[in-house]
């Protein structure tokens, strides 16, 4: 391949890489956030666990979706969820509208995209709490907390 053709090919690949939505931080929908972490899955898992605990959340459940999928004969890369809760944050929920207990605990899903990239996905707490009495502002506070947790795991 001559140098000119190589430059065209390189430019083309760069455009594909930049425009590919799979590797960009993005909002999947109005309610779902997805972020790509440029780290292998085991490291990303360790960092997100540290970030969750650093934000004083308790991990009260962590189903391993990779293992669960094997139960039905489906091989997939690493995937798990974290169910997280902070008792002090439960107080405003129950004080304002105890029906919002349905939205607790919060969930963060993490899965392996490839050997070098990990994807984190979660539902915005503000969207989950929007329809409950007096919890819309609190939901936005929780959005920031989850954003900080995932942001810390990305570093």
């Amino acid at each position: 391949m001559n140098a000119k053709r190589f430059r065209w090919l390189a430019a083309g690949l760069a455009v594909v890489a930049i425009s590919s939505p799979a590797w960009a931080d993005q909002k999947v929908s109005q309610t779902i956030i997805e972020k790509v972490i440029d780290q292998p899955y085991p490291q990303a898992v360790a960092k997100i666990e540290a970030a969750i605990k650093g934000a004083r959340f308790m991990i009260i459940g962590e189903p391993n979706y990779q293992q669960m999928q094997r139960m039905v004969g489906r091989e997939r890369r690493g995937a798990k969820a974290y169910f997280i809760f902070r008792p002090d944050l439960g107080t405003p929920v129950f004080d304002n509208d105890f029906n919002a207990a349905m939205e607790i605990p919060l969930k963060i899903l993490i899965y392996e995209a490839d050997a070098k990239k990990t994807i984190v996905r979660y539902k915005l707490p503000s969207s989950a709490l929007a329809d409950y009495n007096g919890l819309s502002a609190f939901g936005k506070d929780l959005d920031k907390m989850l954003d900080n947790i995932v942001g810390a795991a990305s570093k």
Partner: protein
Amino acid sequence: MTTAGSRMLVGVLVGCFVGAVSVAAQQQGMMRPDRGMVMSKYGYDETVSRVKQAIEGQQMMVLFTADHQQMLSMVQVKAPPMSTIEFFHPRYGKRIFEGNREASPEIPLRILVMEGDKGAMVTWVKPSTTIGKYKGLESLGTELDSTLQQIATSVTK
């Protein structure tokens, strides 16, 4: 029965009817179209136990139970008995991951059991309004609505 006695009986019956309507109205007031709710015939602990049995009866797995009362007691808040039961089965996970993986944050399914003034109640968000809103998963949402309804109904028999 005397006339006065009949009037008193009618009054009591009307009072009971109005009271029943009032309770039903309160329950309806809590309801949203995306929610399901049933009142349990049993106490709180028995209701939690029966819901878990019914989940397993649907060949699903209870992943864990979050005891809100216990968690809130950590911050000295007295709350009524209230638990979220998280459950699912990988066969549905497979359909979601293969059908539309964007729906993955909507799983597992969740049922809330709480002790109210009128007894234990079971509430849930209808999967047709969560999983079912994703393209390609509409029928799964409707299917799971029926499954959750059957699970919840187990505490009314």
